[in-house]
């Protein structure tokens, strides 16, 4: 999980510009930009504060880490978009045949 995404996602979901978020949080716009670009990372406490300024909360929970998922995603990334679509259609066709 990277803090830059969370800040950017919260800001965009709130429909705010970086300047507006900076004003809401009393910080410089350049600081917000550097966080979003992940040039620097805010502390966890600051991250929660920024997300809340966008109207969201950031509950932190632990979930099992699925290494199998990483392998599947890496494998997908190594295919072209065309192959990814072909793979989906082949899977659907195969599951349809199994059902039928």
């Amino acid at each position, binding site marked *: 999980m990277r803090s830059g995404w969370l800040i950017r996602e919260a800001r965009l*979901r709130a429909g705010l510009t970086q300047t507006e978020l900076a004003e809401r949080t009393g910080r410089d716009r350049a600081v917000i930009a550097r966080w979003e670009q992940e040039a620097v990372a805010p502390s966890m406490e600051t991250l929660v504060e920024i997300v809340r300024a966008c109207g969201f909360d950031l509950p932190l929970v632990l979930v099992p880490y699925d290494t199998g*998922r990483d392998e599947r*995603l*890496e494998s997908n990334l190594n295919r072209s978009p065309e192959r*990814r679509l072909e793979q989906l259609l082949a899977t659907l066709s195969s599951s*349809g045949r199994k059902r039928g």
Partner: protein
Amino acid sequence: MAEEQFDPLGLFAELNRQKVTYLLIGALARVIQGADELTHGVDITLPLGEENLRRLELALEGLNARPRDHRRTGLQERLERGDEVIPFQTDKGELKLVPLPAGTQGYDDLRRRMSREYLGHGVRVAIPSIDDLSRMVGAMGRDQDIERLLAMRRLAELERSLGHGLEL
């Protein structure tokens, strides 16, 4: 019951033939960006200008689209009253129009970071960035989407670490 056809390339080809401006969103967009999901429908968002809607109507006609929810209200009226999703059954599979995808400000918000992907048979489709697709999943706020959201965020990390991603 006869199995419904799912021919996304045929569906995109008709939208492209009528020069409809749109972005593919939803599960199929996530799959094309590399997610590990199954889907048999096409979700799109689009600019709601008069000319684009006229082109869309032509494409819907070409696809023999019928309202999946059996509502008789016209497309324009449904857009004006703010329907969140307008589902159609077409001869190429299910097509859902989403005028304002969750967590976004609409088409213009998403198009800045979109990419155009080649999907075969001469068809190219515009797709939002992985981050924007994650934003939409997160904004739906449904328990069943948590796994999808985790996968999308991990996908973005992997993409960046593999050097496919474009930092904005």
